[in-house]
């Protein structure tokens, strides 16, 4: 089974103390992944649930809960700002 990857961006990296993490096997849904990360690190869990934080699955924004497949790359994105 192909490993899944979790990617944190921006301030989430500082909060968690990591940038990328492999998950084998991955949770079945985005909600389950949030629960898993939150149970391990409640402060990160709170940050992930914070306003403006979005999730992307395989580099496409995910709205609400979605199913995850082995090999997926899941990213958590705080509010974005370029320029």
């Amino acid at each position, binding site marked *: 089974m192909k490993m899944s990857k979790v990617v944190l*961006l*921006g301030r989430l990296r500082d909060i968690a103390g990591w940038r990328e993490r492999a998950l084998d096997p991955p949770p079945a849904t985005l909600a389950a992944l949030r629960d898993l990360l939150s149970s391990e690190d409640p402060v990160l869990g709170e940050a992930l649930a914070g306003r*403006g934080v*979005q999730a992307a699955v395989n*580099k496409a924004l995910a709205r609400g809960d979605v199913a995850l497949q082995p090999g997926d790359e899941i990213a958590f994105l705080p*509010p974005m700002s*370029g*320029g």
Partner: protein
Amino acid sequence: MAVRVQTEPFDAGRLLGDFSAGRLEAGGIVSFTGIARDATGGSAVTLLELDAYPGFTEPAIEAMEADARARFGVQDLLVVHRHGPIRPGEAIVFVAAAAEHRRAAFDAVDFLMDRLKTEAPFWKKERGPDGDRWIEPRAPDYQDMERWSRAFSDEVEPAASSDTAPKDMSR
């Protein structure tokens, strides 16, 4: 697609010179250059660090550029955006538009900057003697972006990031 996302420093003057060269049909060219400041809100900044999410950041900016190209009657657009470490005084972003009439060129650059400020997938950290600070869009940035939703209300779906903007900021 004239979009470049790069870590290398760039020279805004040279970009404008290259973009303007040989244009016999454009009446006007508008450019915006965003520069890293040496202080924000009274706190010194020694380094700005922009994170990008490779494979996600580039297509998002290409979609913005294509949107601006379709909305405004511009002949050409260029967006160059740096990420990685950026020193004060260095350029972060350069946007240019060429159009037959100046209004379209102003609008396209203004619109693209508003979208980049509120929706471009970058995450900014300012480093300085007072510590590190993550910078997120300011209330005026969301308000600037909302101008375009009003102007194009019947053809635009809400932008992803303004959906999730704090209620007290996006008003």
